[in-house]
């Protein structure tokens, strides 16, 4: 296959996502966390102005594992793949949506990848609520504000109270139901996150001296 970094490949205008405006100067992030098959990429796709792209981050930790056979220190690499999409909000602000797996190794890279995120959406499948426990626990641990969005797979309906109880969700965390295939519905999830952030308790900072 052709290489994107060959002289020819890098200049394919047809395969390139539409360029941002030259005034764009502020990139923002929201992370959509959820288990496999829960609809993260679907949600990214439904609101993104570009076809979702995929990339990876690798973090190598030297000397942590020892190869028994050779008896020498080897390197262990943590690799996390994630999808992302893009929404141009105005002349300056561009919002990037990242769909990321909630598995354990992912959280090792959270600070490296997603520090500075506005907040997170935990996308859940009500048929597999237990898949979300770990992600919710880690977000609470990190102090990252989040909303929980139940993707509608057409299964038996659950009441919000049932979902809250099953997830052991604190009262202050918004719970919304959505259809990740729908642009409007996914947009509403993002809006609910921003509204949650606006109401989020401000950190305790010392009053400036009079």
């Amino acid at each position: 296959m052709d290489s994107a970094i060959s002289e020819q490949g890098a200049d394919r205008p047809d395969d390139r996502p539409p360029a941002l405006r030259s005034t764009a100067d502020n990139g923002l992030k929201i992370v959509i966390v959820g288990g496999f098959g829960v609809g993260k990429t679907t949600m990214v796709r439904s609101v993104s102005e570009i076809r979702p792209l995929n990339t990876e981050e690798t973090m190598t930790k030297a000397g942590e594992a020892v190869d028994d056979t050779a008896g020498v220190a080897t390197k262990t690499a943590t690799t996390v793949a994630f999808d992302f999409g893009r929404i141009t909000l105005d002349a300056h602000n561009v919002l990037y949506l990242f769909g990321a797996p909630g598995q354990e190794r992912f959280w090792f890279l959270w600070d490296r990848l997603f520090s500075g995120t506005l907040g997170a959406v935990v996308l859940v499948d009500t048929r597999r609520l237990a898949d979300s426990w770990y992600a919710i626990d880690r977000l609470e641990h990190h102090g990252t504000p989040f909303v929980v969005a139940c993707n509608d797979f057409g299964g038996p309906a659950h009441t919000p109270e049932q979902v809250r109880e099953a997830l052991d969700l604190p009262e202050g965390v918004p719970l919304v139901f959505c259809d990740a295939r729908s642009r409007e519905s996914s947009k509403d999830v993002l809006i609910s996150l921003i509204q949650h952030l606006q109401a989020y308790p401000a950190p305790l900072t010392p009053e400036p001296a009079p």
Partner: protein
Amino acid sequence: MSRRRPGRDDSPDRLYTLTGGRSSSGSDVFDLVTLIVAECDPVPGMQSEHAAILRMSRFPTAVVEIAAELELPVSIVRILLADLLGTGRISARHPRTAHGSAHSSYRLPDPDILEQVLVGLRNL
């Protein structure tokens, strides 16, 4: 077309060659969503990845978009970008949200930014 997975299918040798074996020092200034803008055109003899970055960032392009396009891990792209920034070939527009150091805990975004995001989303 089956896309290669960046990093995963690359031999470590290739990644080593791309970066001249350097580690990530100095490249942490680049957030995933730092917008890169080329300040010049590629010149003959330039490393092909550097040239590709300059071509794709004629308009602002996020670090993560560059990584996806080059099919390279973000950490490698950060090193390539540090080269270009160090020689003045690109400029970097860093995110303006409240943004602590890499190991600080969450900091609430600027209320003005939140309002702009809300307006932008509602206008979609």
